[in-house]
């Protein structure tokens, strides 16, 4: 499988960390045994000493997990951090999400650049399954440890960390002339009921992992490193991926019980990625080459009223059958849909590229539930994440047509919204998130 590749599989470079361990490569090729895991390596300061300390404790027994039953979520190895594109876009979708948007609190460019470097270093460590800084224990007893520690003993769990730059960032550091034209502010769509405290942000970090604890740990530690320079504006936890970048795998279902995202862009379809997802050399600005644009929408679902809707109507609304996921009139999920057979207001018909001048986006959303809303209704829905080469030709036309006519609108409401420019990947150990923009 392509689990360990960052983009096309050709340049999934390893992460050489400060201990000299070729962590990315080691983790990628043998995720469960030979890689120094969080548990077996205390930190990067004085590696010899740290390793010595590890073997005297109970660490060795835990690190050797070969003869224990390993829960599925713990089985994930490391996804390479370095590459032409950032991991977490075309790489296979993990089971869990913690997405966080930040406001920038400093106007000191140097300080902000230092934060990006510190974040890059921490991200490389965490995605390889290591602790941040000098680790979670063993330091001074009077001071808090560098790493918060809740991911100790857990596998890398295919953690990916993906950074994005929001429109506000370009104003903040007087970079308006470098703001990509494709990073537009979204128009108001009919039916939007946007909560500012659940949208926007100067920066975002998408943390995806097979273990929610690993994803939450990553965001928590980045937020901690960032205090004073950035502040969390809002964040969202997600579970149950709602679309897949690996078409061979079973299409996951959304909270309405339907398979959605059947025709998503495949993570190994390089020509489709180049056409619809990655910003090309000539697209401009130059610093975005190899990057992408992300639209994040918190879509609340009225699951109680949906559950009282007849099966026939549910299937009409989507334009697919509920059991197999086959388009109207077809037998199999992946059969080519015949759009004209669907109701004009059906979701699949309206969202299909053929209905939108070929507009294609790579969806990577997750279901969410934040408990109940005080009226006993599930506060649940779809945290929609879509990557595209240009927001103007990607999300906007699709959402225009959906927001106008989609029969699903009766059961959903868009309550949070944000757009981000996703810079290209970190190329090597001297590179850092955003160097092409700030460097």
């Amino acid at each position, binding site marked *: 499988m392509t689990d360990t590749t960052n983009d096309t599989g050709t340049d999934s470079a390893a992460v050489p960390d400060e201990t000299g361990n070729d962590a990315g490569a080691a983790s990628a090729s043998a995720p469960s045994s030979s890689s120094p895991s969080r548990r077996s390596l205390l930190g990067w300061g004085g590696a010899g000493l740290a390793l010595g300390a590890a073997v005297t404790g109970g660490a060795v027994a835990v690190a050797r997990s070969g003869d224990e039953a390993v829960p599925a979520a713990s089985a994930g190895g490391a996804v390479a951090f370095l590459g032409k594109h950032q991991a977490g876009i075309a790489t296979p979708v993990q089971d869990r999400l913690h997405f966080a948007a930040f*406001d920038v609190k400093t106007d000191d460019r140097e300080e902000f650049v230092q934060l990006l470097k510190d974040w890059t270093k921490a991200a490389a460590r965490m995605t390889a399954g290591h602790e941040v800084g000098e680790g979670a224990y063993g330091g*001074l007893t*009077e001071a*808090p440890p560098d790493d918060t520690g809740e991911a100790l003993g857990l596998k890398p769990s295919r953690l990916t960390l993906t950074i994005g730059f929001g429109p506000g960032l370009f104003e903040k550091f007087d970079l308006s002339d470098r703001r990509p034209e494709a990073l537009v502010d979204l128009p108001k769509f009919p039916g939007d009921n946007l909560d500012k405290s659940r949208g926007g942000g100067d920066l975002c970090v998408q943390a995806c992992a097979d273990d929610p604890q690993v994803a939450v740990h990553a965001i928590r530690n980045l937020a901690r490193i960032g205090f*004073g320079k950035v*502040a969390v504006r809002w964040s969202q936890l997600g579970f149950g991926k709602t679309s897949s970048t690996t078409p061979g795998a079973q299409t996951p279902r959304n909270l309405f019980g339907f398979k959605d995202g059947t025709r998503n862009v495949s993570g190994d379809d390089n020509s489709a990625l180049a056409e619809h997802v990655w910003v090309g050399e000539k697209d401009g600005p130059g610093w975005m080459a190899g990057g992408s644009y992300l639209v994040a929408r918190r879509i609340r679902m009225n699951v109680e009223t949906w559950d009282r809707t007849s099966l026939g109507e549910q299937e009409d609304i989507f334009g697919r059958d509920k059991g197999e996921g086959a388009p109207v009139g077809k037998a199999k999920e992946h059969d080519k849909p015949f759009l004209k057979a669907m109701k004009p207001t059906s979701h699949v018909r309206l969202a299909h590229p053929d209905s939108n001048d070929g507009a294609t986006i790579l969806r990577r959303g997750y279901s969410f539930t934040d408990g109940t809303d005080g009226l006993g209704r599930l506060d649940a829905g779809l945290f929609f994440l879509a990557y595209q080469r240009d927001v103007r030709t990607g999300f906007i036309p699709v959402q225009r047509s959906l927001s106008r006519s989609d029969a699903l609108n009766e059961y959903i409401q868009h309550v949070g919204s944000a757009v981000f420019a996703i810079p290209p990947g970190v190329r090597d150990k001297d590179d850092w998130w955003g160097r092409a923009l700030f460097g």
Partner: protein
Amino acid sequence: MRPVRLSAATAVAAVAALTAVTGCTEKSEAKGGDNTVEVTATDDKCDVSETKLSAGHVELAIENKGSKVTEVYLLFPDDRIVSERENIGPGTKQKLTAEVKSGSYQIACKPGMKGDGIRQKVTVSGGKTVKRDPRLDKSVADYRAYAQEQADATLPKVKVFTDAVRKGDIEAAKKAYANSRIGWERTEPVAESFGDIDPKVDVREDGLEEGQDLAKDWTGWHRLERALWKDKKIGGREKELATRLDKDLKDWQNRVGKAEITPTSMANGAKELLDEVATGKVTGEEERYSHTDLVDFKANVEGAEKAYGLLKAVASENDPALTKELDKQFAALDKLLGEYRTGGGKDSYTFTSYDKLDKADTKELSDGVNALAEPLSKLAAAVAKSK
């Protein structure tokens, strides 16, 4: 008031790490001879038989020849207590023992168990030397003095408040309320190190345990706050509670000088003041009736800044980037708080009522607190590097 009281564990660990000297007052078999100091206490003298001792086991054989009850201390130069013996009655003898390393110490007798006491310097030599940075000793001594000053200055302010309550003057009491809390809030980690005072004076309504009676067991500032702002009446019970607040705070004033303070507990105490802000003030829970949270907020930050200021010289040698960041973040938070002053100049304690702040305001304050508290949590490490 915090749900979890002080960093007892932190303080203990810090003491162990920094001093490695134990004091004990249990009766041990008298070793006699070598390292015994005869201490003769009277009402105006504290005579000691030896001022030069050898490192190791030391015994103070104390006799009170005065007319007042006294207490005797063996102290570090920064006033930290190595060992103590209280309640030595007139005409009685007591023994005090300690294990000491080489260095300078003081023996203090406190006739009437009050004040700084009558002091004698003693020098311990030989054996291992306690390596201590004299600047940190001074920091601790200065901080101890600050905590005492704050307590001393608070009592009269509290009296203005409690007098108004006793007179049944609601408006005057409301006016004096927030001001009466400033000294306490500035030095809260020290005050809270005496676990019994804090629940009497600073507990909130929801801080009572199951089985405790709100009418009977709830005492202190916040009980009176509710009477003034919510119930809007002063009855006999409130007047009783005012007098009790005076008394409980008097106890604090008397004991604050004996608090266990170390350089790292000062540093972590500064961080704990920000924790107070982050968990109680930013949420508006602390002063839920009076909405004077920003006054407490300001006082907490000032107390933290004081402790930081005293440790800064040492910390900046070990971690200059950290102190630079702390200077910046203290200034930023002070500036932000300043925006909520409602007149009275830049040193006034008249702040916007907390219920007038909107969500964006409180988010900004919360961000400011996080921006300061995170680097502040690293101050203890910067201080601990030099001992």
